């Protein structure tokens, strides 16, 4: 209750401030119109002057008033309001029909317009000046301008001022007329305005250049116009230092006034635009909470967030295990957060459940964490559990593939050992037997010759069996010449006609070729077992997969070929087993 009454009080106060500000502004403009013959303000002197004057001042007041109602932009709003009020100071100063006190007050506050904008630019985006150098610059600017403008009011007698234009009659604050001091203080004011304006240009320029991509987007609507304000105010100060007598009839002064008005008006527009952005982001976050409350489809959390926040680069990572290794929604290990991304932590108790990597310019971290809080927690946790499950699945798959690879490597090694060892020794033994037989035959010992013939025959039989064994353990041709020749050899030896359709000409990874080979080999045995009269094999490479299609005309299958399923599955492939056909898809990239 107390809170809402307090908030209502603030609201009323703000309303009062805005209404009085508008009154001040409209009164200033109306007074200008009744200025009579002499033109003592640009609003009265130039045809476009009033519109430009109005756009700048009312724009700042309106945008500032709106911004002040939002907590995130309250400080910026107040500064814009103050700048708008000070902007009309010049009109009051030149209003001949207005009371002397108001005209004097107008002259006193007018130089502060630039200082408020300077402060505003340094306080983007949240109303606080972050760097200590910035804070010193802002305080220094306020003090300098305040001292100079008050000093000028104390010493300046308008009647003694050679270059007076807006107000040559009244100064309610005059304490001691001193034309020399007043003139020096006026010059001081111009020099300080120049310094502040140039400082503003430099700051806005550096900040805009330093920010990248999405970070620059929210800064540009305010810092862009602020840069123009600085440039036009600097030109104004330089012109006045060189030509102290201000004259709206001269094109230079008129153009400078229009440029200043326009840049302030743009600043007001920029501030209003930022408000729209903030409101839009808030609406998105609100919708996001609803969307996530309804639990998005598994794996869609990231996409939902990206769409809601308008940030395509958004990332969601989940800490896993004791080391808090980061994984993404598909369970793959992720790099640590890249620089330039803000990290919003979504935690349960002390333990983080998810990290949202987002563009800091679009939404602040606490806001995001809040939006993803209570309502969305369930779906975030679901997503984290899913990511964990996926990570385990990946580990399992890798380990399956490794088991198959290790077994293949072992078979291959065994085949090599047989080829290079036992087979070679048997070959050498045969040669020796042949030599001994030849010399025995020369000696005419027929009994020994026939024994040697038998021994040589046995050796050859052993060699033949060993050769077939080695080929069965691992077909060397597969590694050496590839799947095509290896399948040809299978077809040559098959107990039934095997037709080979298309075969991919290029090689694939050893595991892929070996798996395709095993599938065909087993399919031939299987078809022969079901009494097939023929078998047709096709191997295609299609979109990163080896597709092996096998058809036969045997009796329908009853077995599911589980070991083939295991083998193909180990490489992340799939096997479709039908009555008399078989289709294996093996990823090969």
């Amino acid at each position, binding site marked *: 209750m107390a809170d809402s009454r307090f908030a209502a009080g603030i609201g009323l106060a703000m309303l009062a401030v805005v209404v009085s500000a508008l009154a001040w502004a409209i009164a200033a403009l109306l007074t200008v119109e009744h200025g009579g013959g002499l033109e003592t303000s640009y609003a009265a002197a130039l045809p476009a002057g009033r519109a430009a004057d109005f756009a700048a001042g009312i724009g700042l007041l309106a945008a500032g008033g709106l911004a002040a109602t939002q907590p995130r932009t309250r400080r910026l709003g107040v500064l814009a309001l103050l700048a708008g009020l000070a902007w009309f100071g010049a009109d009051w100063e030149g209003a001949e029909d207005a009371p002397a006190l108001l005209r004097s007050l107008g002259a006193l506050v007018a130089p502060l317009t630039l200082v408020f904008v300077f402060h505003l630019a340094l306080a983007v985006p949240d109303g606080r000046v972050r760097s200590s150098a910035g804070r010193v610059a802002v305080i220094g600017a306020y003090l300098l301008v305040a001292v100079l403008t008050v000093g000028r009011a104390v010493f300046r007698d308008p009647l003694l001022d050679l270059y007076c234009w807006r107000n040559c009659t009244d100064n309610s604050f005059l304490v001691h007329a001193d034309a020399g001091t007043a003139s020096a203080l006026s010059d001081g004011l111009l020099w300080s305005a120049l310094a502040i304006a140039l400082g503003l240009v430099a700051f806005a320029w550096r900040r805009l250049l330093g920010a990248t991509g999405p970070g620059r987007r929210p800064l540009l609507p305010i810092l862009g116009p602020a840069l123009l304000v600085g440039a036009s105010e600097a030109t104004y100060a330089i012109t006045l230092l060189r030509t102290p007598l201000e004259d709206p009839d001269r094109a230079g002064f008129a153009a400078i006034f229009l440029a200043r008005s326009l840049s302030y008006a743009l600043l007001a527009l920029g501030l209003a635009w930022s408000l729209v952005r903030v409101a839009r982001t808030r609406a998105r976050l609100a919708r996001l909470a609803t969307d996530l409350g309804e639990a998005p489809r598994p794996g869609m959390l990231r996409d939902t967030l990206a769409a809601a926040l308008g940030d395509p680069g958004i990332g969601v990572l989940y800490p896993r295990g004791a080391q808090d290794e980061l994984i993404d929604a598909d369970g793959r290990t992720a790099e640590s957060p890249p620089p330039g991304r803000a990290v919003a932590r979504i935690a349960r108790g002390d333990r983080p459940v998810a990290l949202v990597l987002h563009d800091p310019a679009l939404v602040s971290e606490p806001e995001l964490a809040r939006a993803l809080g209570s309502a969305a927690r369930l779906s975030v946790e679901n997503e984290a559990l899913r990511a964990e499950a996926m990570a385990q699945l990946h580990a399992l798959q890798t380990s399956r593939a490794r088991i198959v690879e290790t077994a293949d490597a072992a078979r291959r090694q065994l085949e090599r050992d047989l080829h290079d060892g036992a087979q070679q020794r048997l070959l050498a033994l045969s040669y020796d037997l042949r030599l001994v037989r*030849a010399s025995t035959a020369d000696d005419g010992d027929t009994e020994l010759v026939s024994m040697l013939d038998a021994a040589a025959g046995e050796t050859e039989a052993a060699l033949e069996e060993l050769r077939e064994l080695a080929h069965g353990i691992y077909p060397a041709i597969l590694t050496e010449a590839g799947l095509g020749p290896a399948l040809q050899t299978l077809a040559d030896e098959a107990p039934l006609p095997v037709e080979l359709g298309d075969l991919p000409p290029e090689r694939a990874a050893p595991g892929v070729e070996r798996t395709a080979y095993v599938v065909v080999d087993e399919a031939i045995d299987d078809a022969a077992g079901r009494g097939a009269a023929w078998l047709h094999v096709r191997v295609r490479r299609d979109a990163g997969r080896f597709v092996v299609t096998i058809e036969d005309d045997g009796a329908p299958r009853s077995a599911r070929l589980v070991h083939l399923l295991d083998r193909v599955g180990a490489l992340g492939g799939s096997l479709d087993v039908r009555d008399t056909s078989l289709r294996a898809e093996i990823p090969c990239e």
Partner: protein
Amino acid sequence: MRVVVADDVMLTREGIARLLDEAGIDVVAQVEDADGLLREVRLKTPDAAIVDIRMPPTHTDEGLVAAQRIRTDHPATGVLVLSQYVEPSYAMRLLEEHPERVGYLLKQRVFDVAVLVDALRRIGDGETVVDPTIVSRLVGRRRRQDPLGELTAREREVLGLVAEGLSNGAIASRLFVTERTVEAHVKQVLLKLGLTVDPDSHRRVLAVLAYLRSDSP
């Protein structure tokens, strides 16, 4: 006859060299890899090189590659490739570029020194040698519609001997018939199988092998 023997396994190399020696063939060099083989062939220009298909460094098809190099660079030197694999692919690869003065035999085949000497002699005469085991496997391959069924027994025999690389004359003396008869058989076989290759060229071996290897001729 002068021969270079290339095999990375010393036992086999020595065994072959001793068999050749017994048969009165001059082994001018024994080498253990393809580089050594090419060097000795260049230096000694032998009549033939006996090459193991599997040699260092990768132990895959170094012997085949070296054989093709020799046939290209030294047309007068024949090459006999020895292998422990019954692989028609290798034999056909060997014949593809240079169908003459080359041979592909299984290692155990050369136990029989007569076979080895005969192969070297045929290669020296410009013929081709393909291991009978490979040919019989190809001829015996199961087919859905077997066009070989249309051949007579004698024609099948002739087809097999053509695939082994024998010339008409060699086939004639093997079958105890006249060369004219063999010519007639060969023509008839090629006609029945629809092969358009010149019946007298060296290319007929490869054409017949490729035909036997295709699925539905």
